[in-house]
């Protein structure tokens, strides 16, 4: 019996990766799963980006040139859903998989098989969702927020597949989050107290909590939709005593924490990169932690600022306006701390740092336009215009997406053992930076002038801004193909990287060789003050 245990034990710890396709299908290794998540999210970024380019092509000029309004609606809907659930979220989970076990000194994620399940649900779920585009009656066409009754009474039949796809994605997110929380709370190396954890770990701990709290609520919302559509219930139908506005409340109770789910890990990433290239400690670590926790708390009590114009009682509008504005305080603390970290640092501007600085500047702009939208009376003007589109693309593209790209460049040497090509990286940055601003900055103006979102055609007065925006979108879209080229080229022929790939970089992951060994910390490392964070 004891031999059995012994043999079984060695089987499980001393092997490197399996060969061939089964390595990826059957893996329980956090690094493999992280890689799967990252490549999957990149594929989804390209698919979602393709849909965005269809949208921008149609909007290049006023009038209907290429596609019908019905198809345009499917494009905006699926672009949003794919980018939110397929590109941004899985990319952060991939980063969490790769980094958290190394950063807390753990052998792997806490529940490795469930980790694999969380990933493999996603290709099936997105296969289902994308297949709806080819179904009779077309794919989801009701916007990524799928408001009832557009998504119930007036929805195409494919909505049933969409609902189950959302259920699967939710299950994947919940399991992924449970895994991350269990890893962080249970598997830190001795000596790594909560307040010594790296910021990325902190932000993911709080993000995972948000996910577990709100993904089930989304599941509840789509379940009510399913019953309204197929079993004649009346949750979102006033004729039966329900209320379509109730859908919006339930959706945004999920949706607002969701938008922080897409930005908190970005805060963590930037809080690693800026100190490294400013060669200073992160300014105000404790206040960074408390700020993230405050943002997470506030995210639960601000949801109805997405619905100021639907006809809420005045008291509700005022409450949600003030609570929303409160979020500017902890967010301001974070922006202040990043700038204070750079203050008088001996800064260098490698690609990850460029993306991180662009993040701070452009995310702050997105934050400010959000503050404008939070003002209820002003929102009556801005609501459902391109100003909103500009706002959330500023926080999601140069916000969340830039941080993900920054993270890829920053940890690339640790993952692959190769250095990326700095010149190509910088070219990628400048193309992206210019592309993103050319795309989204003019949308502020067309929005303030009253151009509504989610329309395939528009008044002549918006023609110039739309043309600029479309040009920017193509620059940005193709610069992400260039990103793919940079990554593949660097993997194949990059110069070998050192274990501590950046000068003076902190964190347990940098104590490992590059590339990090298949199993990193079978025995927990000693956590020294210098390596903690």
């Amino acid at each position, binding site marked *: 019996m004891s031999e*059995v245990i012994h043999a*079984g*034990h060695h089987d*499980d*710890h001393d092997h490197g990766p399996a060969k061939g396709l*089964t390595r990826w299908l*059957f893996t*329980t*290794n956090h690094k493999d799963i992280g890689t799967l998540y990252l490549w999957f999210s990149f594929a989804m970024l390209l698919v979602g980006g393709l849909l965005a380019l269809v949208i921008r092509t149609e909007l290049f000029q006023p009038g209907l040139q290429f596609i019908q309004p019905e198809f345009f609606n499917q494009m905006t809907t699926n672009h949003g859903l794919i980018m939110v659930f397929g590109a941004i979220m899985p990319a952060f989970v991939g980063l969490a998989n790769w980094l958290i076990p190394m950063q807390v000194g753990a*052998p792997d994620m806490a*529940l*490795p*098989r*469930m980790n*694999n*399940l969380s*990933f*493999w*649900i996603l290709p*099936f*779920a997105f*296969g*289902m969702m994308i297949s709806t585009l080819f179904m009779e009656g077309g794919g989801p066409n009701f916007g990524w927020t799928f408001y009832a009754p557009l998504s119930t009474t007036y929805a195409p*039949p494919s909505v*049933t*597949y969409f*609902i189950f796809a959302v*259920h*699967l994605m939710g*299950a994947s997110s*919940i399991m992924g*989050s*449970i895994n991350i929380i*269990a890893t962080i709370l*249970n598997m830190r190396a001795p000596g790594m107290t909560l307040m010594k954890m790296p910021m990325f770990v902190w932000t993911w701990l709080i993000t995972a909590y948000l996910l577990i*709290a*709100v*993904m*089930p*609520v989304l599941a509840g919302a789509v379940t*009510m939709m399913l*019953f309204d*559509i*197929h079993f*004649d*219930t*009346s*949750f979102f*139908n006033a*004729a*039966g*005593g*329900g*209320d379509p506005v*109730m859908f919006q409340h*339930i959706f945004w*109770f999920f949706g607002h924490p969701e938008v922080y789910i897409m930005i908190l890990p970005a805060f963590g990433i930037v809080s690693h990169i800026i100190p490294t290239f400013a060669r200073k400690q992160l300014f105000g670590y404790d206040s960074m932690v408390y700020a993230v926790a405050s943002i997470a708390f506030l995210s639960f009590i601000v949801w109805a600022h997405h619905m100021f114009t639907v006809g809420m*009682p*005045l008291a509700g509008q005022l409450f949600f306006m003030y609570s929303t504005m409160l979020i500017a305080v902890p967010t301001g603390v974070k922006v202040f701390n990043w700038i204070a970290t750079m203050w008088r640092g001996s800064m260098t501007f490698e690609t990850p740092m460029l993306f991180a600085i662009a993040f701070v500047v452009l995310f702050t702009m997105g934050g400010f336009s959000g503050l404008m939208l939070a003002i209820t009376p002003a929102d009556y003007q801005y609501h459902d215009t391109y100003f909103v589109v500009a706002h959330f693309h500023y926080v999601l593209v140069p916000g969340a997406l830039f941080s993900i790209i920054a993270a890829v460049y920053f940890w690339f040497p640790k993952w692959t053992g190769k250095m990326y090509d700095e010149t190509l990286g910088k070219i990628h940055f400048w193309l992206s930076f210019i592309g993103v601003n050319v795309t989204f900055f003019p949308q502020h103006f067309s929005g303030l002038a009253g151009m509504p979102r989610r329309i395939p055609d528009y008044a002549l007065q918006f023609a110039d801004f739309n043309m600029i925006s479309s040009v920017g979108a193509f620059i940005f879209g193709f610069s992400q193909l260039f990103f793919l080229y940079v990554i593949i080229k660097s993997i194949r022929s990059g110069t070998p990287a050192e274990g501590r790939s950046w000068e003076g970089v902190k964190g347990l992951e940098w104590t490992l060789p590059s590339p990090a060994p298949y199993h990193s910390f079978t*025995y927990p490392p000693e956590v020294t003050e210098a390596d903690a964070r």
Partner: protein
Amino acid sequence: MASSSQTEHSVYYVPASGWYPVFLAFGLMVTVTGLASWLNVNKTGGATDWSQTIVGTIIVIAVLYSWFAKVVAENAQGLNNAMLNKSYVWGMGWFIFSEVMFFAAFFGALFYVRALVVPWLGGDGAKGITGDYLWPEFQAAWPVVTNPDAAIFSNPGQSMAAPEVSVAAMSNWGAYLPFWNTVILLSSSFTVHWAHHAIKHADRFKLIMWLSITCALGVLFVFLQGLEYVHAYRDLGLTLNSGIYGSTFFLLTGFHGFHVTMGTFILIVQLFRAIKGHFTANDCFGFEAASWYWHFVDVVWVGLFIFVYIF
């Protein structure tokens, strides 16, 4: 110090690669696409076909069976160290929290409808103008027995509300199924606790006895809930199509009933494991997780009984 005290057994067990997850994901996809196609065909009145859903469900059950059997076997081999067991504790705890939030969505809908929507539709409150414009004759009340548009959502005027709390109405409570279901489920929380107590005192006979009683109470609960649904549909004409009262009533009690069914099933698995002698005072997490889940469905029921049936 830390490294010198490391023995083989305190290494965190990371399983080698395995086929379960990807097959489970595949099975789930087969199941839900089968279900979606069934629903869509059913809606258009075509010939429906369960076969794909059944195949998918069989895959899911087969994978779950092998997966859990493997985990149980690994534990029996002594591969799980204390830290891994703690991961299971965290995992189950946060899973239950996610379930709490799932029910919160439906309770939230119930409270929002009762506190705001129905009064507004009846012409009261800040947005009472809604009702004045849409259905001026609609009278707000809970349970909503006459819907704003009674032609689309028909409710013959009945609800499952509890009898009055008075001495005169005592006899009505005796015939009130939800009352007995409350008694059954609350008792089962005690019996499952006594079963746990028996594990801690290494009394396998008592463990099997109390666990069997718990499972029986679970089955009885689901059976009575089924009777109540039959009563609602057949005698009262209260259906999913009865407007917001029927919607909230059936989805809240239905999802709860589904969770009780799952919980009973999980407890039956634990009963088989208890009969096989898997549990010891220090190693009984499978049982404990099942019992937490059971206490959770019990607490949800108390919420249901108060907010759906009584008030």
